[in-house]
């Protein structure tokens, strides 16, 4: 059981670091989405199904869509 914990924690931390420190905006939005997926898994492991569903749908789903739409409105083609 401990390994799954470790895998989720490392995955989330790594993707969040990419999201904050990567160069391109679209690549860091995608990294943020992956971090949200990792976060959803963490909430699942923490016995919080409601929060996992909310995190998956809102942070992984809608936030990423909003970011990409905003970048699209700014005319940025995935620099």
């Amino acid at each position: 059981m401990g390994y799954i914990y470790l895998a989720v924690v490392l995955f989330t931390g790594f993707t969040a670091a990419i999201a904050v420190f990567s160069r391109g905006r679209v690549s860091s939005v995608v990294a943020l989405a992956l971090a949200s997926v990792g976060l959803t898994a963490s909430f699942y492991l923490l016995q919080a199904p409601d929060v996992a569903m909310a995190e998956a749908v809102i942070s992984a789903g809608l936030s990423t869509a909003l970011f990409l739409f905003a970048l699209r409105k700014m005319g940025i083609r995935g620099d």
Partner: protein
Amino acid sequence: MNALDFYALSVFLIGLGLMGVFLNRDFVKILISLSVLESGVNLLIVSIGYVRGRIAPILFSKELQASAVGKVVDPVPQALVLTAIVIGLGLLAVGLGMAVWMHRRFGTTDVSELKDLAG
């Protein structure tokens, strides 16, 4: 049993988010760092409510309802985080609205250039 548990991850995310906000100059990247910061705080709240070896606070069966106090995780932090995640999204929508409009008016979303342009 695992030293690297969710407290460590949430504090790592909080630190990462704070650093991202201070170091980045591009407003969209600052918004991303803010989302990471908020995720860190949300994860911390839920992991404060977690109790090892207990199950989610859904009392689906009769006997679980009878003796649930010792078997179930704390529901209150989950309720708080449910609200906090949606607040975070509300803030993000307003922030991205500002970013788009800032880009349209200044041609860039670089916060540090904002000073001399608007000055």
